[in-house]
């Protein structure tokens, strides 16, 4: 990595770190308009600019990496082709020599030398391409890191701003509704009172339920007694009618 690029990344990193420092400084100076002070500062514009720059660098690096990877594949294919040709020519040299055809063997051997030169050149160039791919991949990761960090810093800024604005909105709403925010302790006491009432309400409900239970039991008992009495009455009626019927039959 070149010194310039290292310096760039260090500057970008420092720029990011300065955001939290800036927020802390603004809080320490008890500025009411925290969000304005932080977000309107040149610092945030710098971060936005650095963010755009990092995104553009990332896009360039991705493009370069794609091209380099294509080159890597092409070189590897060429190397395969040359290696095949080399094997064929070497076989031809051996064949010519076995036939005692020295001029033909020499001609093939010269071609072998040329092919070997091409192969060595391709191997070297493929190594270079591979190194470049590795370098670009590393650069890409570095750029991604810088970008993520800048985005995180921007999130920090924007969240500070949003929360400040939201609080102003909420406080404005509460005051506007003539409904001042009650103190935490008053709220707690209100909640406890309500819970107590609910608990005592539950006690009342239990008492009421018990009362109804007793009334129902009593009513059932009464009904049961009543039903016993009415059964006896009915029996008496049946007996009376039976007697009457019997006496009519006798008569």
């Amino acid at each position, binding site marked *: 990595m070149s010194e310039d690029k290292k310096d760039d990344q260090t500057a970008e990193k420092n720029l990011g770190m300065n955001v939290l420092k800036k927020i802390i400084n603004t809080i320490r100076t008890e500025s*009411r308009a*925290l969000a304005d002070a932080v977000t309107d500062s040149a610092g945030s514009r710098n971060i936005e600019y650095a963010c755009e720059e990092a995104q553009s660098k990332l896009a360039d690096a991705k493009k370069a990496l794609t091209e380099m990877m294509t080159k890597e594949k092409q070189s590897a294919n060429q190397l395969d082709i040359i290696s095949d040709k080399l094997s064929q020519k070497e076989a031809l040299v051996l064949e010519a020599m076995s036939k005692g055809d020295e001029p033909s063997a020499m001609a093939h051997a010269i071609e072998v030398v040329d092919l070997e030169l091409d192969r060595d050149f391709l191997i070297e160039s493929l190594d270079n391409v591979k190194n470049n791919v590795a370098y670009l991949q590393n650069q890409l990761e570095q750029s991604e890191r810088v970008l993520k960090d800048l985005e995180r810093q921007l*999130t920090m800024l*924007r*969240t500070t701003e*949003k*929360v*400040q*604005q*939201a*609080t*102003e*909105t*909420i406080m*404005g*709403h509460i005051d506007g509704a003539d409904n001042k*925010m009650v*103190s*935490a*302790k008053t*709220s*707690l006491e*209100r*909640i406890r009172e*309500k*819970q107590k009432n609910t608990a005592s309400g539950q006690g009342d409900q239990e008492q009421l339920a018990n009362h109804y239970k007793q009334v129902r039991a009593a009513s059932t008992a009464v009904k049961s007694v009543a039903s016993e009495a009415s059964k006896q009455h009915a029996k008496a009626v049946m007996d009376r009618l039976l007697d009457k019927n019997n006496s009519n039959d006798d008569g």
Partner: protein
Amino acid sequence: MNLADFAIRLSQHRTSEGYTFECQNIDGEVDVLQVEMAGFDGFPVYVTRTETQVICIIYLWSEAEIIKDSRVEMLEMMLDTSISIPLSSYARVGDRYVLFGALSVNSDFDKLAEEVVILNENALDVVAAMEDFLL
């Protein structure tokens, strides 16, 4: 999910514990939703959204409500207990102490609803635990 969609779904939602929600939009520079849990005596939860996060806030108390001599002890207590509070953290906005939970904007509805409930439960515990420091 934007705040308007969240408000509609939350208004129709009933949790497994039987809580329902009353939502009210608050007009202002940024979108804020006020959510109150029916069936739970707690505090209103204010929900707002940034590009990356949904932030749920409960306003606890202001600087003026703190017993002056207990302030440092209270702050230490808040630092000591913050990590124990599930899914919520303390913060201060201006002169108001808040309890908040932040979720990714990609969080699903159930997670957001869970946040509202747990934040309310946490806030009640926090105020009850810290009341000795308050006027």
